[in-house]
């Protein structure tokens, strides 16, 4: 996702990531996900549940993981008033929103805002 950094900066988009990883794990692996994003640790799934994105399907976490459930992979575009303009839900955990899909969504939804 970090390859879209110039596109985020151009539009002044704040990027937030939410996962159940512990803060230190996120910090360790920050280089993979985006150096400039705000990366939240949602161990108790408080944020995930607020958005209704807890996975109700098969939970296949390795036994070493402490999280009791997981969010469904999802990407949201939100306008300045907090309204969701676009939502991409993954039906397969190994899938993540393709950067080109996210860019097209930003062009369609952010660039047409007044």
């Amino acid at each position: 996702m970090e390859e879209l950094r110039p596109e985020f900066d151009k539009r002044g988009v704040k990027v937030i990531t939410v996962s159940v990883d512990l803060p230190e794990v996120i910090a360790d692996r920050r280089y993979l996900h985006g150096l400039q994003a705000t990366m939240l640790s949602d161990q108790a799934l408080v944020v995930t549940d607020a958005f209704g994105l807890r996975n109700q399907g098969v939970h296949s976490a390795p036994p070493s993981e402490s999280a009791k459930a997981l969010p469904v992979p999802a990407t949201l575009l939100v306008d300045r008033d907090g309204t969701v303009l676009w939502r991409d839900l993954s039906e397969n955990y190994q899938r993540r929103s393709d950067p080109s899909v996210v860019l097209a969504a930003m062009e369609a939804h952010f660039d047409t805002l007044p």
Partner: protein
Amino acid sequence: MEKMKPGTKIGLLAAAIAALTAWYWVHLTREVALPEDRTLFVIVFLSCVVLGVAAFIKRTSWFGAVPPVFAIAVGLFFPATMMISEQVVARDSAIEVGDTIPRFISVDDSGTEFDSRSLNGHLVLIKFFRAHW
């Protein structure tokens, strides 16, 4: 030493391809870089299954049966994980287009509290993902 049976050779080839592809898959998963389109992976894994079966048809030695069994197991396992990893959200509660995002307070990777109010007035991209693995 006795000459290697044709099936044993095919089995070894199948096992090598299966092992390399599986290693590459795991590597990409760790780097969160698995492509959206996994068709090629599925083709390669299923080819390993076909080669594994072909090895048995061509006959292997007793020990030579190990690599094709490995190739078939690996070749079936990875496509199977794609099939069972479907994600389900409770439809009535999942946030939708047109909804206002809820207020939330969380903590970032440096341990600093994050209040979603700080997003007011900004365009935002929020990305949920399972975990680093």
